[in-house]
């Protein structure tokens, strides 16, 4: 494990990366990845779009690295790129028409665009931390389902087979688990 860097140290690495030090850029990515993922987790409307934007942000950051001015704001700069990419993509999706899937994506994109802009603060990252603690409070069966669905990405069809239930029943359970986890995390500020 590495010790988290302060903004000044991060900038020093970014400057090295701007000078062509690729290892420095790798280190920068490792450092900012959790913050970027945490940010997108609260803004991207689907897992698939979160992955896409996360990757696209890092590609764009690498390509535009020379534009960054080291003022201790690299994480914010990166989130700015992510936010722009996400908005453009959501706007594009909101205009989609044609297939059934296009319409569904458009409806979801529109719903995401209508969400009020939430502040990007430490509380969000705390919530993610608390959510991990809340997993421990689930019953063993619920916890197993949560791990399979959220950590291992096991599809609904497979989960239904594994737990010998109908897809609809398992889907309802997953919904409940998500809701309970979120409620738990929001109810217990300060818990770790």
């Amino acid at each position, binding site marked *: 494990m590495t010790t988290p860097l302060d903004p000044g140290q991060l900038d020093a690495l970014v400057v090295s990366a701007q000078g062509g030090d690729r290892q420095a850029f790798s*280190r920068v990515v490792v450092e900012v990845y959790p913050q970027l993922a945490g940010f997108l987790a609260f803004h991207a409307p689907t897992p698939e779009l979160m992955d896409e934007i996360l990757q696209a942000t890092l590609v764009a950051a690498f*390509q535009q690295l020379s534009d960054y001015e080291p003022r201790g704001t690299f994480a914010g700069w990166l989130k700015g790129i992510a936010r722009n990419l996400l908005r*453009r993509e959501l706007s594009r999706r909101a205009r989609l028409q044609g297939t059934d899937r296009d319409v569904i994506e458009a409806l979801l994109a*529109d719903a995401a665009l209508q969400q009020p802009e939430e502040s990007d603060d430490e509380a969000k990252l705390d919530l993610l931390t608390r959510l991990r603690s809340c997993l421990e409070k689930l019953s063993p069966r619920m916890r197993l389902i949560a791990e399979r669905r959220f950590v291992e990405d096991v599809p*609904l069809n497979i989960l239904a087979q594994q737990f010998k239930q109908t*897809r609809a029943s398992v*889907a*309802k359970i997953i919904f409940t688990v998500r809701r309970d*986890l979120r409620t738990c995390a929001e109810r217990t500020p300060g818990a770790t």
Partner: protein
Amino acid sequence: MSTDVNDSRRFYELAELYLDEELSASETSELRALLEADAALVQRLHTLMRDQVICRTALRPSDPQAIGKRTQRMLDSWRPQSGEIAAQAVFARVDQRRRISLVLRWSSLAAAALVILLVLPLLAPLFLRPVAQPDSLAPTVSAVAGDVRLGALALTAAGDRLGFGTTLTIGTNGSATLTWSDGTRLDLGQSSTLTRLQAAGQRLKLDSGSVEVVAAKRALDQPLEIICPDSTVRVVGTRFTVLVRDGQSEINVAEGLVLHQRLDDGVWSLVGAGQRVTTARLPLPNPVLVSVEHMAALKSAIASGRQPFASAFADLQQEIPRFQAEPLPEERVIIVTRYKGPRTELHSRARSLLHHLCRPMVGLALWSRLTDDEVAGRAALARIRVAMELRLEDEEADLLMSDMLAVYVPQAADLLRNQSWWDAEDSQRMDRWLRDVVQPAAERMAAARSASQRWRGVAALLSLYAWRGERERIIALMAEVRAEMPALLSPAMSSTLAARPEDDTGLYQIMAHALLCADLARVAAGDITPPPPAWNTAVDVFLQRLERLSSPADRQEMALGRALAGPGPWRSPAALPLARAGDTIDHSYGWYFPVLLLLDPRWQPFADSP
């Protein structure tokens, strides 16, 4: 608004399927209709998705190493000359279903272009092409039929290439062929899943189905490997088939040799032409000592004048008349006193007598096989029969039984047992002799505390297991020997001997018998598992000792040097000149005519493997 419980469940089911991208066309329409009819459901789906993203992000363990590696991959793909970066190399997608495959320009328009590219995969099958950019050694999908997928892309025509990390999936009615520029060809059968992994050579993971491979000759450091769930097959030029069914592999070799490793116990073995191997049943050539294919290769090498085979054959030829003239011993009871006891001359006499029986016996049997000389073969058989009638008595009877009769008699018999004139009664006689006479003596030796004695006994047991075709017992026993080696061939012992090589009496004995065990395990069970590092250290010490000896005429040590020149991975290249120099030796542990019996001409490609 859909408040009914069943409707609600159905909605959640559709939502989860949407998340999985597993909605059918009718289900997609159903979900669309629900959403368009009820704005609250749109919000509910949005919340569900958001919660999924948050839970997934929160609960997945962060892996800085993996992030670092993926970043490195992106940086490695950067092309400074053109200012381009391969977007597909950036980050391995968690969701493998939709991927970006175009190259982004290094420009201010990159971000905008990227967004467009992110969306296109949803619309155009073109962008379902695998993430990995094919490297210069990537094979081409040269033929497709039926249901074939390259990553997520349905292939309808040949021409695509299989990059690192890309999976080729063949449906129940499909087939495909991969070809490499060197002529290597791999045919995939129906219901096969094959992934190309990063490696110096060509490494292909076969999860299910079957492949038939015709491998062109390859450099040793760039083998073609098929990784099965339970085994690995490695080749440098041959033709073979691999089938994986229910996680278990089966390999059929049509030409040449392949290296096969069983993952359960790490045992490496050779699979020759005409042999089939599963992890439950490894191949056993019959006859054991020189299989039909080995003999064909040996004859070919001799006929073409290839060294050292041609000169070893000439040496044998010169000796045949003398072997045929050698009288059979008349006595049947041999007294084997203690070697360093008061009547040591009896020990030496017994050893000499057995040597004069066994060397012609093996030599004539080998000559018979090489030249189809039945007369020589029958002369060898006469000696085998006498050997089985001998009774060894006194203190070191077990030792000489294990050292000589237990290994040489089955060797000679094995060379002959498939000949048309071989009498089935002789096989039965051999079975009885091994069971009643050899095995008890060998087991007593194998139970001894001294490694020198124990490994003599083990070698004798390996010989009789080989005759019986008990391959798994050979592999298990050899694994025990390997496990014992580090303690016996310790660095401390080696360094002591290196300092005062003239004091060596134990190292030679230990190594000679360990090597005999390894050789027997290889020829009889195909076990070519590498030795522990302690072995290599000890070999170096031993060879240094040979170099420092004033008289190179120490024949026993020459014999070991010669044996060390056998095939890898136990082979020491430094010992090869010793082998060539001392081929007419009077006595050795385990092998007469090792150049012909141990230096399999087919082994050359594997000299340094695995």
